[in-house]
């Protein structure tokens, strides 16, 4: 047969043919010819004409015809990114050649940006093998988002065989850098490496830093909301990881760009250099559809029994705090007690019982504590809880109640159950799976989530628009984290926040100082990261307020001291905004 004559062929050698004058090497795939010749020889099997056409058409539809136009959206018809996220993706693709630090402020969607970029490279066939290194608590979240939002077949790392079996793996940094995983990672060439929470890579002496540096990678995205936490050198090291030499050598950098640890010089030049490797979108600069925040502080009158309990506990705390000696309870438990008495009777109980147990049998304090327990027992009406129940019933929609105390949490859940309102608990101690489960239960089955912590990084509760602060944390950061669970990008409704406070208690003073006088509720929205970077500063507030309280003899002097403290605040506030203007990041 004729065909057999055509079989007298010799397979072509792999072709590497150069063009002149500036030749770009061309490589032709010629593996296929052998297979094709075998088919000819064996007289099949052959594809049908329909299949052949379908395959050709599929290739035409998926081919990427331009270098620079973003393709990923065509493949993600259900996704509508915000303009700044698209701009970021384009910039990384076209100007930064796939190596960038994504340093948006919290809540602007760095994960979405990274997903878009990864998708784009996958669609273009420029990335096949990718590794995503994230904190352990975020592994499942990342995996889910990449799969659901981006149709990227990412897999959470679990077993060593997976290093070879899957192209796109999400692993925790700790897992990846441990032997024998580290050997596996370091012997693989990754088309793309993504590191989340990359501010942890600020110290070149750490194992993590060295590990990431040694990973063989083509494209690389480092994600962090706080590229500059303490020291300009951290920024230098981060960028050196991505593009060595971008900011020169460590010594050169220090000499040329640093006037102090946190104070840059030759700022314009530094900014220009940073703009080639780092993108930082800020809330204040984006016209983003952030929902309204409606804050309502509700002041309640304590019942006479509650008032008595509050005063008795406060007296006890002040007395004990002013005493010297080893016999008395720790300041920490005393402060806890003082704060608990603003939360619930049950919380006070638990702490009193614990104090009681710790005391030696002959301690005179035992009788005192016993008496306090008795006073607590007299409390039958729970003013705050009552109000909370009313609120929940009027809201008639999903509500999150935050409390600082476990005992209060349990008490509230009991109250809710008595009223036939379904609720689920949420605690810091829950593992990731349980947190997700509780979130699903809350979303689908229950009206109320009673939480003792803000849920940690990455838990989004955007389907809920009502937050009740049953008691107030003394650290404004914690309050911000609570609200941040629901008040974030993508929230389509105004968010209502209710602060429950009892009149004439320490809580009322705190509320006034932290959340109204300093106007934190308004200001943080625009500069959340400024606040975040000052986590330390927030902790300081908590500490200082505590000390003020301990030192003041009575309510009046405490209020006076707080007022003073508030004033000193405004000064530092002004200082901070001065400093911010001098910061180098764009």
């Amino acid at each position, binding site marked *: 047969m004729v065909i057999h004559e055509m079989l007298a062929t010799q397979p072509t050698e792999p072709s590497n043919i150069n*063009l002149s004058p500036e030749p770009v090497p061309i490589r032709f795939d010629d593996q296929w*010819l052998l297979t094709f010749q075998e088919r000819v020889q064996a007289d099949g099997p052959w594809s049908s004409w329909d299949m052949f056409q379908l395959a050709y058409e599929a290739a035409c539809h998926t081919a990427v015809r331009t270098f620079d136009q973003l393709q990923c959206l065509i493949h993600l*018809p259900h996704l509508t990114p915000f303009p700044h996220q698209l701009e970021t993706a384009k910039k990384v693709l076209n100007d930064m*050649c796939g190596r960038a630090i994504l340093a948006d402020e919290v809540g602007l969607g760095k994960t979405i940006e990274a997903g878009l970029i990864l998708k784009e490279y996958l669609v273009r066939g420029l990335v096949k093998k990718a590794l995503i290194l994230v904190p352990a608590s975020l592994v499942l979240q990342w995996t889910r988002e990449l799969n659901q939002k981006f149709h990227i077949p990412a897999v959470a790392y679990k077993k060593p065989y997976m290093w070879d079996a899957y192209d796109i793996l999400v692993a925790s940094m700790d897992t990846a850098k441990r032997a024998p995983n580290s050997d596996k990672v370091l012997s693989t060439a990754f088309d793309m490496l993504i590191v989340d929470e990359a501010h942890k890579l600020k110290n070149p002496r750490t194992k993590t830093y060295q590990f990431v540096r040694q990973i063989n990678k*083509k494209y690389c995205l480092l994600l962090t909301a706080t590229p500059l936490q303490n020291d300009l050198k951290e920024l230098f090291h981060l960028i050196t990881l991505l593009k060595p030499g971008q900011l020169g050598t460590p010594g050169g950098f220090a000499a040329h760009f640093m006037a102090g640890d946190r104070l840059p010089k030759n700022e314009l030049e530094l900014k220009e250099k940073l703009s080639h490797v780092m993108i930082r979108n800020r809330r204040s600069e984006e016209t983003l559809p952030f929902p309204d925040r409606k804050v309502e502080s509700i002041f309640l009158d304590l019942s006479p029994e509650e008032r008595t309990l509050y005063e008795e506990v406060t007296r006890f705390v002040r007395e004990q705090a002013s005493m010297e000696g080893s016999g008395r309870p720790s300041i920490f438990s005393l402060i806890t007690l003082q704060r608990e008495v603003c939360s619930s009777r049950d919380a006070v109980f638990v702490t009193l019982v614990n104090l009681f147990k710790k005391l030696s049998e002959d301690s005179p304090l035992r009788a005192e504590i016993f008496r306090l327990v008795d006073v607590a027992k007299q409390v039958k009406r729970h003013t705050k809880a009552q109000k909370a129940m009313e609120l929940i019933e009027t809201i008639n929609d999903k509500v999150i109640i935050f409390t600082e105390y476990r005992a209060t949490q349990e008490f509230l859940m009991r109250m809710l159950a008595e009223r036939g309102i379904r609720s689920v608990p949420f605690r810091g101690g829950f593992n990731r799976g349980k947190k997700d489960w509780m979130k699903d239960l809350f979303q689908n089955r229950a009206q109320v989530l009673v939480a003792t912590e803000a849920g940690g990084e990455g838990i989004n509760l955007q389907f809920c628009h009502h937050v009740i602060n049953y008691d107030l944390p003394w650290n404004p950061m914690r309050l911000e984290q609570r609200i941040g669970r629901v008040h974030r990008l993508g929230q389509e409704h105004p968010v209502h926040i209710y602060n429950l406070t009892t009149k004439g208690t320490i809580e009322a003073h705190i509320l006034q100082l932290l959340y109204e006088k300093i106007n934190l509720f308004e200001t943080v929205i625009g500069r959340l990261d400024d606040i975040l970077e000052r986590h330390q500063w927030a902790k300081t507030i908590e500490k200082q307020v505590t000390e003020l309280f301990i030192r003041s003899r009575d309510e009046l002097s405490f209020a006076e001291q707080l007022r003073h403290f508030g004033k000193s605040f405004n000064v530092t506030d002004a200082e901070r905004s001065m400093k911010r203007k001098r910061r180098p990041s764009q």
Partner: protein
Amino acid sequence: MMEQEQLRQYVFRYFQATGSHVLEAGPGHLRVKLSETADKDLTNRPLYWAFVERSGMPPQTMTMTLIFDRNQTPDGTEGEEVRFGSPRLLQIFSSVARHGRWTRLYEEPEQTHCPAAAVPWLGLNCNVQYICDRKRDEIHALGVNLVTGAVEENFMERLKSRPLTPRLPPRMHVAPAALTLAEAVHIVQNRIMEHVRTQDDSWARAARVRMAEEMERIRQFYENMKSMPMGRPEKASDPAAADDDAWQATYEKQLAEIKWQYEPRIQVDIINAGLFFLHT
């Protein structure tokens, strides 16, 4: 990119080509009882198929409803929405890529026509990929006349208008090929190289400039790091910088990464290939 109607037609043709049984074909949806081929490629149940094959049981394929336009589906239709980029479509694309790679087809002669000898052609669909840190694709459908060596572009278009059959029609004469397959492939390669030569190569020149800049930057960086006197805190603090060899190794690794990232090159992949016996 495909519009929804285009997508519906494509998926419909896929089901026909796999021998699936289309139960309902509305303007906005398709309900299909899958063929074995389609079931294996789309339902992701390898264990079931392994079991069926081992036990010799008659297979039960699945039925699926795909929705392309909600507004045009009967009320109460439940199914999976398919759009460009959907995982389902990706599965279909990889299924056709698997089953549509190699073909051999004959053009049916017109009945009244006295059958002349049919000419053998090699049809090659290629993806020409221009790659640096970015990438662009170009699809070429080329046909090589195996008798004369003539090359035809848009060969798939030409084939579309012909009645093609997988069986050699009775009394069909086939002209003997003057070229081997490998020779024909060479002709195609030359044609593509000619084409590439006429293309704007500014993308490659720009990529080379970027690459040179990057390389120079890290050369300077490591040069400076190496020349720093021992005991400088920056150097001492960096365990990987223990000695010059370590620096050299890191430097070379990073040079290689930059090359990997930026170096311009053209990669030509074959989408699919076929032998076609055509009347002139």
